[in-house]
């Protein structure tokens, strides 16, 4: 039966070979395309395929007070991560974890959803775990396959002070925050970033640099070792910053301001260093670390007194009489003004069709410039407005730093308002305001608005006769600007004399701030600022001179009455404390 002859023709033979080699050529071309033409592309792909980058958080720099006390520290906490692809039974694992470390298993699965980015990417399950909790899990290693822990430095506040508006707070970087960053590549999701206060201002120094470890992983996401061509980089801890704050002073300030609403700032006039600053009400500094209960957080958020607002930086207040030294220097600047001239104060003053009253409705009688300051007589200043105009006064306000940011190293500073004729024209129209506004302006009322930090800078200028430095919280020589005002020595002497009289004269409005110490000279000025939102704000500014040391102080108490009776006694208490602290034993 094998007799049938082969009938294949040469044509059939060659067509078959042609088809065979066409198919093979097609395959060869495709391999050539992948291996030679697209080599770079696939090479890179192969590398990213097998390399897992694990970042290690760098501990943030510490924040210290001027004496080296730690104000902000890092608490070594642990975070618990899972590799989703390695979890055999998710729900069972989550329940096991929550049972062992005592957290709600709902929270665990909520976190898992929130941080999930891929089957083989570490996903956070829980944070702020203690070593104790981790060890309990570690004992049951076998039951929680695919779950790992990692050290995570969390912010903590070991000192006795709050200093909440100075230190500020940090936030956890989420997708939303990361998109708004200028340098998103320096941040991983879950990192912490300075969000306010010094934490934000000095973010660059405090942050440090991530450590990076490259693991070789197999297709199942299991780490199988390090990679030689990619050496690990150790985390670089952030730099510590040393503040000008004195924790003891800050503590005192927080105590005297307890249950009050307002600001107190204490510092060194020559350098602009701030020893302590409080904006009340404040909040616990660990509010944002996630260890606080949600209801506490809500209560702070909805508090009518707005504890989150940084009053010394952002609060805008009418300054009242504390700026009378500016008006004084304007007067003294005019050669037509007689420094010894007296004006009669009857308790009120008719200007055009309006009556302007002195704070003392009975009148101060005959007052000279010194008396006008120490009694804080308004009528004296009303009666001398002929010696200057609106814009000259505005120029002197600007000279003393009002209407401009002080450059304090906490972001979000307000500028305040120093009205000029241009400002008034814009706001009320050319004929919508009258010269009567100048009467308000010269005693620190009306449109002028200032921040307590500007007032602190102003106080420092007065105390140093115009030679201070910008107020600041952190020693940093590069950034400091000298703030210098050139006024005749005569003017400075007069201002100093008058401001001392405010304290030591028996009629002085600031006599409640008299330290009554023979080796200490005290200067000051009170203010009782009327405001449209309620009771008067009480102001006190001043400084104490103890040999070659000066301590300046600014106090603002919102809606609490007169500066002389409310603010001055507090100034005394604080300044006394400072002197005692510096007095040799």
């Amino acid at each position, binding site marked *: 039966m094998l007799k049938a002859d*082969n009938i294949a023709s040469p044509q059939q033979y060659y067509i078959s070979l042609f088809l065979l080699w066409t198919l093979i050529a097609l395959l060869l071309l495709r391999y050539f395309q992948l291996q030679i033409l697209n080599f770079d592309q696939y090479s890179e792909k192969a590398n990213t395929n097998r390399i897992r980058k694990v970042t290690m958080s760098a501990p943030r720099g510490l924040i210290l007070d001027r004496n080296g006390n730690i104000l902000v520290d890092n608490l070594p906490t642990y975070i618990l991560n899972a590799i989703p692809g390695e979890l055999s039974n998710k729900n069972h694992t989550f329940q096991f974890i929550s049972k062992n470390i005592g957290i709600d298993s709902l929270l665990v699965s909520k976190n898992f959803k929130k941080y999930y980015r891929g089957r083989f990417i570490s996903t956070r399950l829980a944070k702020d775990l203690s070593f104790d909790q981790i060890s309990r899990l570690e004992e049951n290693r076998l039951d929680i396959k695919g779950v790992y822990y990692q050290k995570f430095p969390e912010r903590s506040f070991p000192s006795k002070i709050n200093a909440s508006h100075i230190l500020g707070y940090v936030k956890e970087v989420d997708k939303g925050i990361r998109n708004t960053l200028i340098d998103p590549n320096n941040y991983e999701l879950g990192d912490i970033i300075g969000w306010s206060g010094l934490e934000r201002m000095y973010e660059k120094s405090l942050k440090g640099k991530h450590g990076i470890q490259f693991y070789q992983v197999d297709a199942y996401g299991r780490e199988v070792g390090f990679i030689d061509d990619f050496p690990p980089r150790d985390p670089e801890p952030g730099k510590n910053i040393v503040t000008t704050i004195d924790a003891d002073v800050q503590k005192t300030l927080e105590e005297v301001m307890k249950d009050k609403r307002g600001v107190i700032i204490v510092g060194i006039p020559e350098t602009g260093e701030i020893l302590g600053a409080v904006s009340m009400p404040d909040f616990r500094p660990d509010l944002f670390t996630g260890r606080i209960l949600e209801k506490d957080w809500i209560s702070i958020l909805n508090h009518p007194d707005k504890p989150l607002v940084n009053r010394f930086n952002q609060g805008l207040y009418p300054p009242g009489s504390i700026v009378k030294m500016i008006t004084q220097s304007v007067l003294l600047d005019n050669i037509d003004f007689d420094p010894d001239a007296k004006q009669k104060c009857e308790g009120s003053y008719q200007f055009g069709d309006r009556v302007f009253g002195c704070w003392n409705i009975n009148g101060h009688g005959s007052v000279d410039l010194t008396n006008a300051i120490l009694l804080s007589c308004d009528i004296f200043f009303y009666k001398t407005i002929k010696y200057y105009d609106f814009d000259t006064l505005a120029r002197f306000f600007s000279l003393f730093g009002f209407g401009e940011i002080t450059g304090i190293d906490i972001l979000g500073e307000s500028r305040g308002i120093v009205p000029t004729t241009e400002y008034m024209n814009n706001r009320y129209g050319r004929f919508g305001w009258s010269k009567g506004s100048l009467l308000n302006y010269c005693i620190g009322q009306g449109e002028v608005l200032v921040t307590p930090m500007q007032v602190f800078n102003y106080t420092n200028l007065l105390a140093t006769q115009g030679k201070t430095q910008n107020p600041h919280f952190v020693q940093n020589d590069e950034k400091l600007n000298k703030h210098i005002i050139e006024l005749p020595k005569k003017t400075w002497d007069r201002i100093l004399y008058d401001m001392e009289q405010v304290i030591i004269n028996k009629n002085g409005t600031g006599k409640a701030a008299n330290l009554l110490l023979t080796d200490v000279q005290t200067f000051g000025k009170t203010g009782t600022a009327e405001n449209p939102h309620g009771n008067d704000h009480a102001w006190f500014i001043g400084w104490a001179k103890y040999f070659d040391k000066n301590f300046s102080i600014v106090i603002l108490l919102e809606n609490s009455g007169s500066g002389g009776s409310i603010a001055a006694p507090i100034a005394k208490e604080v300044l006394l404390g400072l002197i005692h602290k510096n007095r040799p034993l």
Partner: protein
Amino acid sequence: MLRFSFFKEVPLKILWSILFLSFLGLIVLKSISKHHQGYFLETPFTKQLIFLIPAISIMIMILFIPRYTIHKFAYPFYVLGIVSVILPFLGSPHSGTYRWLDLGLPFAIQTSEFAKVFTILALARYLSDHTLQMKQFASIIVPLVLVLIPTTLVMNQPDLGTSIVMMSPILPMLYWAGSRPFYLFLIIAPFLSMLTAFHTLSFTIWAISLGVIIILSRSTLIMAVSLFFGNVFLGLLSPYVWNTLTPYQQNRILTFLNPEKDPLGAAYQIIQSKTAIGSGGLFGKGWGEGTQTHLKFLPVQESDFILSVIGEEMGFVTIAITLLVISYFITQIVKYSYLSKDRFSSLALIGIATIFLAHVFVNTAMTVGLIPVKGLPFPFISAGGSFLITSYIMVGLVLKLSVNYTD
């Protein structure tokens, strides 16, 4: 009785090419086995080495079987082949398929591999025994049925790759036996009609080409008209039939035809395979240095994707050599088929050549994403006992049938 001169005529030169490929396969399997955890005898390398012993023995045994015996037992073996692909359905499925026959041996047998060879021999016998009027269309019906029986069974195992390979020799063998290419075209035409029907432009072009070919074939008017409209109607009908299927059924069919639709399965494999190959470059990363391979990114690397391992570790150079060597081997088989004196040998050889080419093309094209993933091994290189033995059986047949003598 075999004469001594027979052995002098055996084309041993083709043995060099398969020895080269087998050796290359062992080298690659050794690399893969480097990080293999488990018993030494269970590594792909050792297993392959062990299976080479029966494979080569059977190849040599075939040389001693008289040609008429092969011809005589072609049908019984064909039936045996069909039974062997039915048997797995009686047992329990291996990972959801009925491809493997468990005879209580330490390994299971993929019977469809052997059935492939038996089908070719049966086909060769049928086409050579009957002095058929191959110019007539009716003559191709029996061969078609011969192939479709085992093919349908294998497709239901399910094993689309093997069934495609099993079906592939029919066209070249009919062509070789003298069928009019026009009739072969008619076999393919209904499939093309159905496939192109889902794309208006393709269907238009197809309908025009169909018409032109029918006119050129000089068929009778009635024949031409019924062929043309039969195909067009089939085409027009198929989208309608398709739409009557439930989405679930549609998906089953789509996933069956194109497993890449399942992104975590086949698409992942293709991406990893292309990455491994592409990152190998001209000379590769070096033996045992393939990161994709050894970090297990590359799936089924010892069989379906073994070419990707070669591509990654030994580069384009080795891939090119491999493809050229296997093409040389197939070319030689085609040549002996052409030179063969008797029709049975000639048809068996062209069938075997087609099987090898189908394996090479489907496997290679799959590793580089030219066609959907089909689980098919590369001849002589991929690990797998049943296919290795089948390949050597086919080599034995090639050596046997390529020698022209009368006995």
